[in-house]
């Protein structure tokens, strides 16, 4: 497969690992931000091949995992409203809220649909003019432009039966919150390539300078990540703080201007509670006033929703890189992918799910 096989070449990977084992001496705690990267690292067994000085911690980059319980409860309540079709991405349907997940609501009679794109949800609205179609919009800056496009089209077509429950979040404020925390241990970062493809990487430059950490922008294939780790470790060793783009086939400093303009037109930046991390200032995207009439939260006034979190789940610490998934007392015992207590055990991008899926019972990296 072109553009994939080249980035999975075993000989190059072994050479990079060799160089890393030779050069990495100074202990470094490296956070890969994106859950997709976490999965590649575990899927290819890269975590166990790293030298002892390199400690990987997994970041909050799973959009499903960080979506607040209150929003999931709200989505479930909207889905259970008569006449509503609620559409969202696959992973989101299985994340437990206070009273179960959206697939459970579907089993109880709600019309919940899995879509691959916000435009598919828009199509549902066109096809079912007598039903209210609500798109539960989760995701980072990667999926926000597609939601924005769906909203703009709905406005242009005067689709009265389409609305959006906005749960989009922004990565840089979360990174800032992690690095600024008093107990932070992260000393180098691998930034999420796909978010940077949309937003560029200029937002990370002031963060790198302020916290004195190297940030490398990397893709999602094994070689992308191995090269990213190698460069981050080298920069950390040399005491350099700055941003390096190792994903130039997708990312530029400025990013995708058209997508950014669309986000700017449809959304406004707002404070947002992250599951396990608390409220992070300026980290969410709400609908702009011009699109307020398409806001499902306003269209379906449900009043105050009291969210109930599991008291056992330590997802917050996992999402901040403070706790490795398999070090959680509930890991793979009380909390499993079949009966998840927290979102990281659900999503295909969640760190806990990655540990169960690729490293259960072996304790990936724990031999170090």
């Amino acid at each position, binding site marked *: *497969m072109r553009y*994939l096989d080249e980035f*999975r070449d*075993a000989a190059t*990977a*072994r050479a990079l*690992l060799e160089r890393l084992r030779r050069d990495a001496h100074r202990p470094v705690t490296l956070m890969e931000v994106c859950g*997709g990267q976490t999965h590649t690292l*575990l*899927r*290819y*067994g*890269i975590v*166990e*091949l790293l030298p002892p000085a390199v400690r990987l911690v997994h970041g909050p980059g799973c*959009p*499903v995992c960080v979506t607040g319980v209150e929003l999931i409860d709200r989505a479930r309540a909207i889905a259970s409203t008569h006449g509503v079709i609620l559409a969202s*991405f*696959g*992973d*989101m*349907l*299985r994340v437990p809220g206070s009273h179960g997940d959206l697939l459970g609501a579907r089993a109880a009679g709600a019309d919940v649909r*899995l879509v*691959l794109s916000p435009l598919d949800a828009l199509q549902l609205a066109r096809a079912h003019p007598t039903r209210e179609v609500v798109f539960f919009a*989760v*995701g*980072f800056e*990667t*999926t926000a432009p597609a939601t924005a496009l769906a909203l703009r089209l709905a406005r242009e077509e005067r689709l009265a039966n389409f609305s959006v429950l906005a749960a989009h979040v922004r990565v840089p404020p979360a990174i800032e919150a992690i690095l600024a925390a008093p107990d932070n241990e992260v000393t180098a970062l691998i930034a999420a390539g*796909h978010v940077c493809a949309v937003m560029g990487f200029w937002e990370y430059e002031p963060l790198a300078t302020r916290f004195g950490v190297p940030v490398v922008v990397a893709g999602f294939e*094994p070689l992308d990540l191995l090269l990213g780790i190698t460069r981050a470790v080298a920069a950390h060793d040399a005491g350099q703080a700055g941003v390096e783009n190792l994903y130039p086939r997708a990312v530029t400093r400025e990013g995708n201007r058209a997508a950014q303009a669309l986000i700017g037109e449809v959304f406004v930046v707002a404070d947002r509670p992250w599951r396990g991390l608390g409220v992070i200032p300026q980290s969410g995207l709400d609908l702009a006033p011009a699109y307020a009439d398409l806001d499902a939260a306003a269209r379906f006034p449900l009043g105050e929703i009291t969210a109930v979190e599991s008291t056992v789940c330590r997802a917050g610490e996992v999402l901040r890189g403070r706790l490795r998934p398999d070090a959680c007392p509930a890991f793979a015992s009380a909390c*499993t*992918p*079949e009966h998840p207590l927290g979102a990281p055990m659900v*999503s*295909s*991008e969640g760190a806990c799910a990655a540990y*169960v*899926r*690729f*490293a*259960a*019972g*072996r304790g990936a990296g724990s031999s170090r």
Partner: protein
Amino acid sequence: MSLPTCPIPLGDYPRVLLAHGGGGRLMHRLIDELFLAAFGAPATRHDGHVFTPPAGALAVTTDSFVVRPLFFPGADIGALAVYGTVNDLAMCGAAPHALAAAFVLEEGLAIETLWRVVHSAAAAARAAGVPIVTGDTKVVERGKGDGVFITTTGVGVVRPGVELAPAHIRPGDAVLLSGEVGNHGVAVMAAREGLTFTAPIESDAAPLWPLVEVLLTATGGAVHVLRDPTRGGLATTLCELAAGAELGLEIDAAAVPVAAPVGAACELLGLDPWYVANEGKLVAVLPGDHAPAALAALRGHPLGRDAAVIGTVTEAHPGRVVARNALGGTRVIEMLSGEQLPRIC
């Protein structure tokens, strides 16, 4: 495959009515003119099929088929209902002897559609060399079915001397796979979601007994177990084998063949082809010294052209499947929880 004209004139009843399942004249017409026209009329009209069992051990299996859409590239629910059951028999080491088929029809289903399904099932049965000897139809109200559900039950004759079970797996055994994985599931998903690829992906649905027969012949019946990796895909099948044998499986990830378009589609959708369903593949576990002959036999058959030895059985990590990749890293292969869902970003 050219389709004979539907024998029930469309002008009469273009769609399935509740009355088609009511036991009266309409139901008899449906059975006579549609089902029996496709499957062939039995010698005697009876409530069941009476036969003298052939010599040797018999295998019996049953399976229900629900798939949306009913038609997808490479196959359809009718062919699937036949192949699925004859393949389950083949995994018992049994040649198919006879099939029973029950159809649950949804009110409003186009008779033309039903004819295509029934005709396809009949063609698949002929391809598998097995008669459909008895059956049943029921009609449910509109909205209470997905067009058509089919349940097939098969009886097969086990090849003498063959006894297949996970408990027979031994350390040092070789694990063979008969070809590329993931085609069926991706073909169905692409048809369901309206995704098109420049290289069309077709279901691999096929009757496996002929392939099993050459494998059993080439190895003198030394095969320890056979499994067709349908729902849950190759990964789930390997996990079941490891658990059943209470032994470990060591899989060479690079040896597992995945067709380039299937791999690309899975990348795009965030799916793992190892967990995607197949309908014309088998996994065989057999003594290591028989592996070369087994591989040659599989590769000599059109259905096993891309067969490969994908791993070995070990006493280490009992009950677990570990895949080693070209980087030297390993991953534990776990059974899927819930369904595979497309990724977000």
